[in-house]
């Protein structure tokens, strides 16, 4: 069942056409990986879905109805939770405050204890290495912040989770936990959009791979049917690219010692 579907999305920034005629479908219990080169427009797409930027044109359907997502609050109401590439945390607030921002427990007399307990649960689940949850986020390492941002998207009860390069700053253990998490989310019937530059991760968890190139769709593949090389070729637009050249150079070097 298709939960989210995009048709003909366009977005221009000044003189740059960031997205042109984008289409994308996400079903429940499905993990769609969106891949593409730097500046291909992946994050712009994410921002359009989460209400940060309005699209210049195009339609978004959510659970069969055509919808508008003018603000992030609207996206939250629809049940779209997002982990942004730039994380979007408030540096002056501590970890608990960031996690529960906008969805505090007991609005008129905040329940600190409940929030702190829940925070530790979430962070432990992601095997985060955060010494204290009462320090401002400004004092956290890059990976710690990313863990906080991911943990935040799990609060509430989303129908779609969008992860924009969720494992970029994570350590190996945390990356493994996030991949586990994505699989759990799929099992629970959520739709997941995951953006990543890591082909291994993509092939490990995704069901479908959508490739963007220079702001345009450049193919949608079933993960089972396609090799990492094919995806990379679609991303770079050529079978002869920096990656393949490097791979070749490496193998030559190993062969001729």
């Amino acid at each position, binding site marked *: 069942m298709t939960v989210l579907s995009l048709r003909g999305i366009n977005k221009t920034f000044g003189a740059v056409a960031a997205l042109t005629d984008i289409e994308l479908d996400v079903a429940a219990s499905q993990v769609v990986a969106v891949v593409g080169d730097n500046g291909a427009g992946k994050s712009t797409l994410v921002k359009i879905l*989460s209400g*940060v930027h309005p699209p210049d044109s195009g339609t978004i359907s959510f659970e069969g109805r055509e919808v508008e997502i003018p*603000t*992030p*609050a609207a*996206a*939250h109401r629809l049940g779209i939770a*997002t982990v*942004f590439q730039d994380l*979007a*945390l*408030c*540096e*002056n*607030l501590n970890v608990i*405050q960031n996690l*529960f*921002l*906008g*969805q*505090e427990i007991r*609005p*008129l*007399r*905040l329940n*600190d*204890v*409940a929030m*702190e*307990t829940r925070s*530790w649960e979430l962070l432990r689940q992601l095997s985060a*290495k*955060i*010494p*204290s*949850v*009462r320090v*401002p986020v*400004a*004092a956290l390492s890059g990976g710690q912040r990313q863990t906080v941002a991911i943990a*935040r998207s799990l609060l509430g009860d989303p129908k779609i989770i969008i992860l924009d390069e969720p494992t970029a700053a994570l350590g190996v253990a945390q990356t493994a936990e996030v991949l586990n998490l994505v699989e759990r989310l799929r099992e629970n019937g959520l739709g997941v959009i995951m953006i990543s530059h890591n082909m291994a991760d993509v092939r490990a968890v995704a069901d479908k791979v959508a490739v963007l190139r220079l702001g345009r769709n450049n193919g949608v593949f079933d993960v089972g049917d396609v090799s990492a090389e094919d995806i990379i070729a679609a991303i770079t637009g050529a079978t002869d690219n920096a990656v393949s050249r490097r791979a070749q150079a490496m193998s030559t070097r190993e062969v001729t010692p």
Partner: protein
Amino acid sequence: MTTTTDRQDERLLDRQGLRGVLADVVERARGGDLGVIPVVIGLVVIWTVLQILNPIFLSSANLVNLTLESAAVGVIALGIVCVLLVGQIDLSVGSVSGLSGAVLAVLFVGNGLPVWVAILASVLMGAVIGWLYGQLFNRFGVPSFVITLAGLLAFLGLQLYVLGTKGSINLPFDSGLVNFAQLDFVPDWLSYTFAVVAAGWLFVSGFLHAGERRRAGLSARSVPLLAVRSLALLAVLAFVVWYLGQTRGVGWMFVFFVALVLVMHYLLSRTKWGRAVYAVGGNVEAARRAGINVRAVYTSVFVLCSTFAAVGGILAAARLAAANQSSGAGDVNLNAIAAAVIGGTSLFGGRGTAFGALLGIVVIQSISSGLTLLNLDSSIRFVVTGAVLLLAVIVDSVSRRSRTSHGRA
């Protein structure tokens, strides 16, 4: 002792119990993260200097004056703290306070309405002005500096217009309002009761909270620590009450101001709205993406600030027993903003507390009152005021300075 959920990381230095708290304070002093303590130290320095220069300064009578004089601008500063927290500014609090005093006087004295109607009307007018600012800010994205600069001019004009041909209107000395601001003091027994209640409440709430945390498996403050803390508060409050009681005691207007500070402290630190305010000040875009209604937050804050300005204007008019054309003019704006900044509120948003306004205004009024007592030439007085102000803040800043090098920018 088993390790609690929140203290399992092996890199955490052990800081439990009374000794741990001390170690923690030392470490935080080194790291420049002492909250309001530096401002208090700055205050003590100034008080010592001024007392040496003129032995009347710390006399009970003068301190009673000080408390009463702090209230009006202090209330205004409380509003300024809120606007600064979201990274905006309100330059018009002076004009709004002046206008509010004028409206009060015209309705109450001029039209003979009951005083509470006049007060309500003034406060409401403040709220409407703030709402207007919020609309202009949200709709057109005009910088708040410019909106409120325009407000400064416009409401000054309105104030002159409202006062009209009279220019200056006396409030009757025997009215409840003027009495409240000038002559009403809390009876001693009630003051002491306040002190005991405050200290008791600090202990009980701390105790309950610690229990709750312990049950949830989190680290909590120990009972002796809680007891020490509330006894210290009791001692301080009782001393203040006793000392001020040597002459006239604690004025109701000051109690009103402190009560407002406490309410704002609660709102800012213990409610969802307060969190939203800090979030918007720290990073608007992040707050927006978290689904916070950023516009509503801005509007609420502007409304609060103008409302407090109106309340401050009423207090000022009551204290002077008159509303006139120069009410709210002069340095009311600067003093209110400076009080907030001296109290540790950042002009860039996201950092500050309600207590900062209280401390800041006490610093400013101390300087002003202390130098007033010295009877210097105006020229010298201005120079010395500037120098002392700087001194007070340097003490604060120096202790904060190590922050960056300790990585808390």
